[in-house]
């Protein structure tokens, strides 16, 4: 298990799951979870490359940034979703089409 490949495969799987979640979930919270998955798959990649290719701590630093960013993003997104729910009584993204036409 000292090779880069398994990490990349896991990252790809997680990324793919995240993307599909974003595409298929109608629920805004679900999409948010998909986004978290994508971000984390990126984190895995960063750390894997840092460990096997870079040999420094750049990857870890970026990963920590992403985690913080993801937390902030989740907080804001949830707040928006909550507000949408309050006004629209739904969190189904297909019905949120105010900007159409």
């Amino acid at each position, binding site marked *: 298990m000292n090779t880069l490949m398994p990490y990349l495969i896991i990252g790809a799987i997680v990324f793919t799951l995240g*993307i599909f979640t*974003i*595409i*298929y979930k109608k629920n805004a919270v679900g999409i948010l979870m998909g986004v978290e998955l994508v971000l984390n798959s990126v984190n895995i990649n960063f750390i894997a490359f840092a460990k096997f290719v870079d040999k420094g701590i750049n990857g870890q630093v970026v990963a920590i940034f992403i985690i913080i960013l993801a937390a902030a993003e989740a907080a804001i997104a949830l707040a928006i979703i909550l507000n949408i729910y309050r006004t629209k009584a739904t969190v189904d993204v297909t019905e949120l089409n105010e*900007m159409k036409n």
Partner: protein
Amino acid sequence: MITLALYIWLVPLLAFGIQIFFGKRLPRKGDWVSVGAIGISFFLTLIMFVRMLLNYSPDYAVHASVPWINVGTFKIAMGIYLDNLAITMAMAVTTVSFVVHIYSIGYMEGDPRYSRFFAYLSLFSFSMLGLIFFDNLFGIFMMWELVGLCSYLLIGFYFEKKSASDAGKKAFITNRVGDWGFLIGLLIVFTTLGTFTITDIHTLVAQGKLTGGLLTAAGILLFAGAVGKSAQFPLHVWLPDAMEGPTPVSALIHAATMVAAGVYLMARISFMLSFDAMLVVAYIGGFTAFFAATIAITQNDIKRVLAYSTISQLGYMIMAIGVGAYQAGFFHLVTHAMFKAGLFLGSGSVIHAMHHAMHKTGVEEDPNDIRLMGGFRHKMPITYYTFLIFSLALSGIPFFSGFLSKDAILGGTLAFAMAQSNPIHYLLPTFGFLAAIITAFYMFRLIIKTFFGEPKRPDLYEHIHESPKVMTGPLITLATLSIWIFFTLPSISPFGSENSWYYHLVKKPESAVSVQLGHPVLEIPEHIEHSAHVNGMMISIIFALTGILLAYMFYYWKKWDVEAFTNKIRPLYDLSYHKYYIDEIYNATLVRGLLLWNNILAWFDAHIIDGLVNGAAFVTRHVSRLSGIFDLGFVDGLVNAVADLTRDTGQLLRKVQTGQLQFYIFGALAGLVLIIIGTLM
């Protein structure tokens, strides 16, 4: 003399200027301005005339001219040419004009356009004197038109009456027809000779610069002007209608002076008449003399009788010029001016009286109608006696001026016929003698009907009065001037004027045509001339007396029944009464034809020519509509098609823009996958 002539000529113009602008505001409405002006002209002319008599030279002539138009080869000089002919004519004109001016003071009294009337008279005097004095045909033509204008204005003086304005118009237009010929004659003269001056024309024609058919044509065309102005057949129709004008005007313009201008012109240019032209002139004159006399017999309007008589007498004068009896023709012009003016003034006196009588009794009828008159000699003695004198003069009875001149004409005509080999030319003296008999007849018919017999309308008769002195004075003056003695001096023989001042002074100018041809155009041997004059005198006296006798038989003694006789010759009577229907014929053909033709052309203009223009516009509009359709459908269609395509594509692509984030991501992913696959392949 030239200066004198200028004063004589221009003083009436000054009077016209004053009258037309200030006449109404002057005391007495300014009649004294015009009368004074013509008076000055009269006395100056008298001075000129006396000087001429003292001079007593047949060759007397003064000539002065100034260049008037001078551009390149186009030169016209204007000048004054005074010879005995012009001075005599001016004397006659100023005399009659002066007398008529004075008469008008009485006749026109109270007319609302009193000052206007005198203004026109002054303008007329000016134009007529210019016509006499000018040395060139162009100037004469200008004045010729101006006297025509005055005639127009004065005939239509009572323009509220349609008949009056119609008559004025008719006079002017008929004259213009004659002037058309006159103008073309002038053009022939100028284009061949390069001058209008009469003395130069004389010289040049004598040199043979204008010959043959063109010369004849020029003579006849210039004569056409005289036909119009002197009311010769077939342009005589305007003169009877011209009697619509005030009577003094009829006396001055339409009897004594203006209508005689044609004769004066012919006398002036007689030197350039070829033999053929002379024949035309003679026959037109002779025929008119006879023809107009036959109409005068049946007319009932006192002025119309006199009008036809004027036409007839003018025919005599023209005929005289045509047969080469130049002196006789012009002589008749002068004597006729006096007694015919007198006749008109006398008739004016009668009409004036009738008018007042009708005004008083409230009768609304024609004051000119002789059927309403009769017995007036008791009421208007002066008018009657002067009228009688004038009639005797007109009829050609010895001791009166008319006899002298008429006899001279008839003698001249007879001599002409006798000298010609072709007996057909006896037609001319025949016309002359027949006209003489008829003249005497209709004049006495007129006198008897007006002054003799029982009053036809006692109601009117009661109110008939002699005219005021200002009107009878002129009558007496003119009657005096109709006595033979004034025209035969220094001889006092009442039977011939061969030894008179007139025959001594007014000589026939040498015929330029004769000089040109090298032989006389018209040769009448002395003995024929003499015998013709003796015979002519006898015949004319007998004929005149016969005419008078016939009139007495019919109308005074009533030996013959007029009605019965009239019925016997009904068709002839109708022809005469209706003036041979010439007016009707002209109206039906020329006037209507012209109006129809105008309307056709106007229709043509409005519908065909303008139609073409509008049609072109119409076609252009429709072509442009077609091209508009093409433009819209094809050219614009292409443009629109591009737009449409863009729009439709847009519409299509719009479907893709769902706004669904997931869909976009799916698209991006799908694209990524495709790119990857593409790259791998």
